């Protein structure tokens, strides 16, 4: 399937989901005006991708310095989706990359960790 590439704007992150290398990356800030609309193609791509997944090792790298409250919800929904796949036996590693200078980015990662059961969210220093 095609890779998903969305370039960053001032208020949306760069998204590169590579179906060939199984590396999914989101980097930047996310506070769009209409969060559901912005992320709709991302979820559409993910659904198709996860449906085709066998036992390949997937790495998800997230380096998000700032997200607004509606993006926070979208990220949670995305992690729930990954978690459901892990429960079905898929091999997904989730890395939350934080900046040491930005205390909140570490705390945000921890808060997502608290809400996940089987999906491991690794806090990785940049």
């Amino acid at each position: 399937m095609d890779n998903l590439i969305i370039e960053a704007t001032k208020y949306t992150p760069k998204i590169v989901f590579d179906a060939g290398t199984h590396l999914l990356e989101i980097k930047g800030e996310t506070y769009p005006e209409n969060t559901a609309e912005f992320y709709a193609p991302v979820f559409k791509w993910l659904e198709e991708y996860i449906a085709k997944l066998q036992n390949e090792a997937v790495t998800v790298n997230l380096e998000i310095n700032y997200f607004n409250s509606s993006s926070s919800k979208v990220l949670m929904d995305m992690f729930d989706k990954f978690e459901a796949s892990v429960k079905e036996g898929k091999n997904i590693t989730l890395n939350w990359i934080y900046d040491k200078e930005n205390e909140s980015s570490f705390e945000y990662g921890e808060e997502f960790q608290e809400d996940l059961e089987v999906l491991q969210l690794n806090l990785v220093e940049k």
Partner: protein
Amino acid sequence: MLKKFHDISDRFSEHDLFLTFSGPMSQDLMVEIGAILKIKMKLEGASFATILKVFSILVELNQNIIHYSAEKVTDLQNSKAEVSAGCGIIAIGKDEDRYIILSGNMARNRDKERLVHKLKQLNGLNEEDLKKLYLERRKLEPEKESKGAGLGFIEVARKTSQPLEYDFSNIDEQHSFFSLKAII
């Protein structure tokens, strides 16, 4: 008119408000206000954490105006969301060592009770309970009135050091002017 205009400007200064905007608000405008705010705060020596808190509150309150203000400017030729701007007022200031953000917009009276209930609830919670509520709500489907995740005010409350102050000034049978003050 010009004399009054100077009075308005003076009154903002009296209240230590250094950045104000009133009128139709858009996403792009908000981004630029946020950018100059970050620069100003940095020059004043604010910490990275404080800058991020003030910026986060600005985004939440501004996006509330864009989405929920009862006064809107809409391009009738193209009713898509991008060209619709909610009108309101945003003011940022510094009172001694605390940053304050004020926002105001027209609200529908039918939404008043729900908003007051929500704000009262948030003001009654401590930091730990606010976090709990935030995480709980993040896992749920948003409320039907919400255009986002319904987390905006919780996010604001989590980043403030004092209870949120708010006011509804009656305009007419259907509308009130809703004001909110957040102290960081």
